[in-house]
């Protein structure tokens, strides 16, 4: 029996084909995974099913929900199906709810627009559904507004809205991508529970193969608007038939060959650390509770101490809000400390103008967002050459920029182009070239591969490993993704509420976490079961 049957779904936006002959079935009560890299057409498929495509998009083919072709329905008929027969949740919980309405009203609205219940009764159902998604009325009043809830809680409200009328199908488009790993695990548990107990089918759309592995019974792999492969999850993971699927699987837990530590292995104490943080404290002033009352203080970094040896790769992990970013800003000399010291190659890091350019030149950074990291009005040579401001522009600046581009796998001729002409992966390469150009001793990689697709991510990780081999700089690798940290770091620091709660060799800490925070992180990180993997064919 089939609940949803998609047949030959095709779509073009203007002249660009977006979807090309998509076909798949979902049975009642089944979790079906749709996986693919960005731009593969996953979200467009979901929007086409919902009839929520951008104006002017006319999909062809069939989308049969329990025997009715949704594509042939009028907009009026579709509004009767949306929310009643199909519910949908989206990626970004922070903006998915109306900031001006209470969560109870927003859940009740689903019932009211479908005239499923009178107002009072709709409120009662809303209360009940909110309790079902883990927001019981005694702790989370339905009178709360979205801004009073966290991201994970808001995603729960979005789920309550989507399941308020007990639809037969729930579409979840990257429902946990914007969330912390621990919150992600909770939301995925909630969705699995709903499928089990309420009998709804779930179309789970994600870029993350490990999430699919833990949730979906069957899946389809999408690439460039087509489905390249469909099948039962475990069988498909064990024996992918298509090269594309194989390369995705390989990239998802790719481990670059890590260079042997160039530092003398003998006495660790003998090697002068390149970065030495001692008792670092960073406080923020919060808005005062009343005029003239003292500002309350928030200690974002609370007595942190650690060292990084030359050429070492150190990971820094923790949930969002643990103080990772604040610590990073202090190390870069962008914000002053309120206590403790940060020494870079033996000299004190201070914020602002008091820090000498020579000292600043010893540390560089690569940011997460490949789009916000570059001034869109400058050409690549000016972007990559910006750190020369610290060292004075050398005579052979042009040659060095060309060499740096070549080193990160780009064409030296690219230096005359603007940043919008490059893809996300290429931009991160340019960001690495910019960090590399003045040969710093330490590069901070602030979630530097988090926004990249798995295959591109694997290539960038390889690049980073090779550069460390060639130039011997140290990395401080900040990430929320334990699998990446596992792949590229020698040592890991776990941060919680402004403190380092655990540290040690990466493999050891992640295999046998001692602190509850690390245990929680490790347990929440979705993984592909080890025995599903193809017999090793790598060296």
């Amino acid at each position, binding site marked *: 029996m089939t609940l949803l049957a998609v047949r030959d779904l095709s779509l073009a936006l203007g002249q660009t084909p977006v979807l090309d002959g998509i076909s798949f079935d979902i049975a009642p009560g089944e979790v079906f995974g749709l996986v693919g890299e960005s731009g593969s057409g996953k979200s467009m498929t979901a929007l086409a099913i919902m009839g929520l495509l951008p104006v002017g998009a006319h999909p062809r083919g069939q989308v049969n929900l329990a025997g009715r072709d949704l594509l042939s329905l009028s907009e009026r008929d579709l*509004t009767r199906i949306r*929310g009643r027969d199909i519910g949908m949740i989206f990626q*970004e919980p922070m*903006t*998915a709810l*109306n900031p*001006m309405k209470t969560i109870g009203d927003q859940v009740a609205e689903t019932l009211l627009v479908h005239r499923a219940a009178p107002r009072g009764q709709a409120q009662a159902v809303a209360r009940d559904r909110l309790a079902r998604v883990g927001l019981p009325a005694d702790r989370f009043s339905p009178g709360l*507004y979205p801004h009073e809830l966290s991201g994970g809680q808001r995603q729960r409200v979005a789920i309550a809205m989507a399941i308020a009328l007990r639809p037969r199908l729930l579409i979840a488009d990257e429902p946990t991508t914007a969330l912390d790993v621990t919150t992600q695990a909770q939301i995925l548990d909630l969705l699995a529970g709903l499928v089990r107990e309420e009998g709804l089918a779930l179309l789970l759309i994600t870029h993350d193969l490990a999430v699919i592995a833990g949730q979906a019974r069957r899946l389809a792999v999408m690439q460039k608007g087509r489905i390249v492969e469909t099948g039962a999850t475990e069988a498909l993971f064990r024996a992918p038939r298509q090269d594309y699927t194989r390369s995705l699987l390989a990239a998802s837990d790719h481990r670059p060959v890590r260079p042997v530590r160039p530092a003398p292995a003998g006495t660790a104490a003998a090697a002068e650390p390149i970065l030495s943080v001692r008792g670092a404290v960073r406080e923020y002033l919060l808005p005062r509770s*009343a*005029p003239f009352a003292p500002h309350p203080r928030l200690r974002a970094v609370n007595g942190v101490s650690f060292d990084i040896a030359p050429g070492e790769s150190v990971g820094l992990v923790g949930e969002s809000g643990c103080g990772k970013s604040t610590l990073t800003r202090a190390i870069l000399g962008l914000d002053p400390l309120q206590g403790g010291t940060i020494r870079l190659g033996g000299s004190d890091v201070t914020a602002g103008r008091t820090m000498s350019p020579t000292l600043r030149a010893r540390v560089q950074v690569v940011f997460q967002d490949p789009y916000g990291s570059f001034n869109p009005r400058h050409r690549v040579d000016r972007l990559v050459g910006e750190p020369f401001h610290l060292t004075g522009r050398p005579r052979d600046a042009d040659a060095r920029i060309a060499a740096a581009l070549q080193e990160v796998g780009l064409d030296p001729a690219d230096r005359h182009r603007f940043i919008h002409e490059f893809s996300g992966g290429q931009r991160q390469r340019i960001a690495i070239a910019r960090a590399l150009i003045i040969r710093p001793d330490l590069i901070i990689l602030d979630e530097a591969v988090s926004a990249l697709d798995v295959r591109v991510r694997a290539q960038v990780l390889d690049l980073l490993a090779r550069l460390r081999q060639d130039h011997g700089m140290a990395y401080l690798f900040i990430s929320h993704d334990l699998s990446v940290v596992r792949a590229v770091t020698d040592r890991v620091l776990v941060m919680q509420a402004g403190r380092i709660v655990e540290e040690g060799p990466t493999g050891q800490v992640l295999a046998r976490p001692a602190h509850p925070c690390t245990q929680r992180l490790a347990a929440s990180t979705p993984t592909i079961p080890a025995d599903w993997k193809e017999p090793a064919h790598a060296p």
Partner: protein
Amino acid sequence: MRRYLLGRLVSLVLSLVAASLVIFAVIEIVPGDPASYMLGLKASAETVAALRTQLGLDAAPPERYLSWIAGMARGDFGLSYTYKVPVSDLVAQRLTVSLPLAAYALALTALVAFPAGLLAAARRGRIADATVMGATQLGIALPNFWFAMLLVLVFALHWQIFPAGGFPGWEGGIAPGVAALTLPAIALALPQAAILARVLRSALIETEGQDFIRTARAKGLTRGQTMLRHALRNAMIPVMTILGMQFSFLLAGAIIIENVFYLPGLGRLIFQAITQRDLIVVESVVMILVFAVIVVTFAVDLAYAAIDPRLRRRA
């Protein structure tokens, strides 16, 4: 909520103090001695000096500033040099024209702008939208005094539906007063309505593009329902801001229109006072207008809090 209110209230008081200082300072540097102005060119130096003492012009500036403020707090705005009557009486009398005119114009503005803005946003990219956008673009370009002349030409001189100017007062009943204010209110309102309609349209379109609208559509709401139930309330923040500024403009900026229609309003009072160097009147009326603007801004801030729950976080 308390914190937000308190913060706005503190800034209200600070703005008033700053504004009064600026006004006082500007009047200080204005050339010309009010006493000699009042007495005319032939007055002797002694009489002028006597009048200066009588008017309190001899005192040091800080002292005069404080007595000005203290007077205003009691409702005493001083004596007009030219009219020789208390400024408060003058202002009160003029407000019976200016306030109804501003309210009338504001009501017309909203009455035209809201349907037009909603229609344009709902029919985005279609003929109705293009028509509204073109018309509002022309409306913004209209100098209101010229528009007023055209209105007089057509509705007062040609068809004789409304009076061409002057104000009969409210003694003769509501109808003649309203009739006298109709053409001025239209002349003031239409260009403002054009601005407001455009702001409403773009705020609605901006809101329509947000994620929560898509969520609402996924629940089964129609486009029209999302606009009225979700987008409109979110779009009200910029609209309230503009509406607040427009009330101030309609109250104070009516100077020119009051001149066109010979209306004895606040704008005309201050215009005449400026040209006659009746500085006490200028000083006080500007202060009253600034006070009105600041109070309206404060009211708009309160309206924000009423609309937007994020501003009324529990303290």
